[in-house]
């Protein structure tokens, strides 16, 4: 190392105004042999694993192929998708409300918001879902209608997942709002903009930069998390394949069917997140 600097230093002319051509020294990067070896090793291991998966007949890839696009699986996928979308939208709407309450000047509203978030984050979603599923035991009738008729499994799934989602969304949105510089709000106030306009036009769009990455995580988590509704017999993607393998006992290939769909949709969502993040980064240095 020191030998190298010694041999180089004297032979180097003042570089900026050195004439191009034979006198310009060539740069030789460090040879990273270890790095190459590690990469080759890992690739070999991965290839081996892939070969074993493809050639192991127990995976029954033909069964996977046969069920991948059957009506019932696609219907299950459809339900998973719209349930995810609805829960995200409703959850973030309620979460934004909770965040605003939490940041309001009203102590009672602050406490209510805090209490909600505390309660719904402190209990497992499985327990919450079973609770709403059995709410009829506490309130046999709501507004004169039998609770069991009013709240079918799908409605229970939407309500249960949304209330849970909102508690997390509230914290994400609150963090986003707090990340916006205080001067932004003061500028908006001094321009006479009303509270609703300040929130919607000035604060939330800037908060989005810190909201989108965790919201993307939540979306992917929710997509997979909706599979929990299979325990209350809602026919989502997971439940649809379960219905099949309870009949045919082809458990592994059918779980692979569900897995492939979850992976496909999740990959698309990650890609979408990239574009959404880029959109909300506009106006910051380094873009455009």
């Amino acid at each position, binding site marked *: 190392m020191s030998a190298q600097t010694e041999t180089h230093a004297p032979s180097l002319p003042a570089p900026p105004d050195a004439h191009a051509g034979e006198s310009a020294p060539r740069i030789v990067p460090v040879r990273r042999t270890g790095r190459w070896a590690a990469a080759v090793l890992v690739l070999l291991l991965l290839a081996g694993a892939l070969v074993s998966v493809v050639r192991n007949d127990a995976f029954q890839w033909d069964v996977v192929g046969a069920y991948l696009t059957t009506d019932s699986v696609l219907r299950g996928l459809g339900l998973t998708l719209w349930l995810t979308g609805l829960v995200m939208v409703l959850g973030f709407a309620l979460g934004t409300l909770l965040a605003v309450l939490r940041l309001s000047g009203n102590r009672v509203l602050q406490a209510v918001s805090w209490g909600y978030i505390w309660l719904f984050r402190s209990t497992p979603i499985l327990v919450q879902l079973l609770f709403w599923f059995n709410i009829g035991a506490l309130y046999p009738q709501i507004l004169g209608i039998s609770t069991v008729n009013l709240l079918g499994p799908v409605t229970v799934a939407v309500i249960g997942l949304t209330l849970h989602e909102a508690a997390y969304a509230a914290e994400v949105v609150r963090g986003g709002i707090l990340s916006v*510089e205080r*001067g*932004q709000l*003061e*500028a*908006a*106030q*001094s*321009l*006479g*903009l*009303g*509270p609703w*306009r300040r929130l919607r*036009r*000035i604060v939330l*769009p*800037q908060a989005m930069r810190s909201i989108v990455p965790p919201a993307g995580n939540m979306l992917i988590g929710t997509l997979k998390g909706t599979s929990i509704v299979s325990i209350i017999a809602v026919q989502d993607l997971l439940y649809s394949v379960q219905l099949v393998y309870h009949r045919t006992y082809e458990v592994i290939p059918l779980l692979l069917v569900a897995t492939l769909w979850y992976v496909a949709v999740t990959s698309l969502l990650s890609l979408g997140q990239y574009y959404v993040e880029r959109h*909300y980064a*506009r*106006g*910051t*240095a380094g873009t*455009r």
Partner: protein
Amino acid sequence: MSAPTEEATGAPAMVEIRSVHKSFGAVEVLRGIDLSVRAGEVTVVLGPSGSGKSTLLRTVNHLEKVDQGWISVDGTLVGYRRSGNKLYELREREVLRQRTRIGFVFQNFNLFPHLTVLENIIEAPVAALGRPRKDAVASAERLLARVGLADKAGSYPKQLSGGQQQRVAIARALALEPKLLLFDEPTSALDPELVGEVLDVIKDLAHAGTTMIVVTHEIGFAREVADTVVFMDEGRIVEQGPPADVLDRPAQERTRAFLSKVL
């Protein structure tokens, strides 16, 4: 010290500040401020850091509430309604309405980074005053030309230099056609070579007869455009008068000490 200006000259005061006190917790930041600013005049506020200059400016458009005393702008109490011997706090809507008549320019510009220059300027006229978008755009373009940035309408703030951003911020404040402009150290966040372009814009406004209160450390600017220079220290106005008096023949030792440091 601060004679009621109406009586002295007959010109109505645009801004009246009367025995204003303001504390943050146990710290009294404003300790009885009296100040009048006549229409069309430029008042420059000087003073060491922490003397309460920003706080005073912020009380004038009710970004800070006063604890005692009152402030009126263009004959209207700021933030309160008087009935008998009581001051009733106004609802936010009414305060926002009052703020549209007072322009505020911040040290750090506080432009909205996610909106273009044009969108920054038309936001308040459209959203707060309900002006038609087309009119707002037309006058925004005129204002941009006035601050020398006609070609920057579609840029985002972060693409502009600090001096350009501050000029946009001035145009944004002017878009509401305010009766009064407040500047809180408008050049303090700028690289030295950009200070001039912003001061030039403020000087133009001064010559056009805009009523302004400017907090700044630019003594040369004060000497050139101020009708009144106010020196503040520890929450009080120590001395005020024409620049020739306050800057060149300060009566108070504290003013002298401060000037010797900044000059």
